[in-house]
């Protein structure tokens, strides 16, 4: 426990609040980097995900790509891209964006797929155009799962951004690697605690958003609100169950 006390002391040490290594600066870097990555990944993944979800085309491909990406080790991708692009912010940025795309993509199309087909059919039958169906029915009803996907991506990016300090001078991971190298346990542990707090805070924020975007009429129909890990477990469970019964 003595080590934890040292870590807390390190976090509170005024010396760590000035200069290029100031904690607030590093937190900001880490957050900004995460956010920019998520925005770019979303800009790429959401339109494609909506297209797949609405038309059902390209689903098989998206599913296998997303599955394959899960097996690719993030550290391997980071170091490989770093060797290609060179040291600097470019490499982690590219690697993280690539890693953030599959969960967002999957969130976008599973969100559409989870909608009762009869609801969409009825919307079409009363005369909604395809664009109106997407905007007025599929996007609002699929939003919770999309946010779930972005949430998974955010978790992954925050974690991998820490690892990115291995190849670039970026974010809170810097403390971990400096501490490891100089055997400064207080810095190493203090940095780790900061990353964990940041990740938990993001998790909390996304959990709140996800709860918030469930359309009101939908809440009252389900006993369980689409929640926390559900984006992860439920589609898998559903598909497995469907497979079992077909």
């Amino acid at each position, binding site marked *: 426990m003595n080590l934890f006390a040292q870590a807390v002391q390190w976090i509170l040490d005024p010396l760590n609040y000035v200069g290029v290594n100031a904690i607030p600066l590093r937190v900001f870097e880490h957050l900004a980097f995460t956010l920019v990555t998520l925005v770019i990944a979303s800009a790429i993944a959401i339109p494609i995900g909506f297209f797949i979800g609405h038309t059902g085309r390209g689903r098989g491909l998206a599913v296998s790509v997303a599955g394959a990406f899960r097996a690719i080790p993030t550290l391997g991708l980071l170091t*490989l891209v770093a060797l290609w692009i060179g040291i600097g912010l470019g490499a982690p940025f590219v690697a993280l964006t690539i890693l953030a795309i599959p969960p967002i993509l999957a969130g976008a199309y599973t969100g559409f797929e989870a909608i009762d087909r009869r609801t969409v059919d009825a919307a079409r039958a009363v005369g909604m155009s395809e664009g109106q169906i997407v905007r007025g029915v599929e996007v609002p009803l699929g939003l919770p799962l999309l946010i779930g996907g972005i949430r998974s991506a955010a978790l992954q990016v925050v974690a991998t951004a820490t690892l990115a300090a291995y190849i670039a001078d970026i974010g809170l991971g810097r403390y971990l690697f400096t501490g490891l190298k100089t055997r400064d346990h207080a810095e190493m*542990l203090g940095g780790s605690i900061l990353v964990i707090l940041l990740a938990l805070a993001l*998790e909390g924020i996304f959990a709140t958003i996800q709860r918030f975007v469930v359309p009101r009429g939908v809440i009252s129909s389900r006993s369980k609100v689409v929640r926390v890990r559900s984006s992860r477990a439920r589609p898998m469970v559903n598909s497995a169950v469907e497979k079992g019964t077909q």
Partner: protein
Amino acid sequence: MTWIWSNGDLIWDRTLDHLVLSVPPILLSFLLALPLGALANRYRASRGVILGSVGLLYAIPSLPLFIVLPVIVGTSARSPLNLIIALTLYGVALMVRVVADGLASVDRDVRQSAAGVGFSSWSEFWQVELPLAGPVLLAGLRVVAVSTVSLATVGAVIGVQSLGSLFTDGFQRGIQAEIIAGIVATVVLALVLDGVLVLLGRLLMPWTRKSSSRVLLPVVTPAAVTR
């Protein structure tokens, strides 16, 4: 590419290291998640507490956990045991929800009819609920296997040897082939373990044989689990 041919032994050794790091967490997380998931499925209160905790646990980034964990449990940061414990925690975090959802997905009517024909609640769990939740559990375990294999590589940056060591070494010495070899070996290892699980599933759940024709990676879940 010549690097790969002249370093076959190294790759093989790191693969063995990697197996030692990743197989125990996969098995342990399944064993630990069963009672926790069952408990989460049984009572409303325990569901909230357990699923809430594993949710938070899962949100903790891996590298900081690898660093913080030794201070809590008293292992050395560089010991494989430290990594095995951390990976088991992630596996449990993933698997508990799958177990809870899988058990919840078992048809109420089936459970009631089982109780009706005279199963005790203990034997009903083992002989009815668990087998019926089997396909869901298998799907979850496959995700755990693939993500554990991928996650184990991160240990390399704190000095725990695995296929991840090929990334750190390749990066520091500027050898692309080494990194690529590491990535390929990791993916292949994940596929092999996944295949073993699928085969085990067919052996233990012969009634699902017709439907689970896919041998490829467990897919679908929106959230890639690697970090």
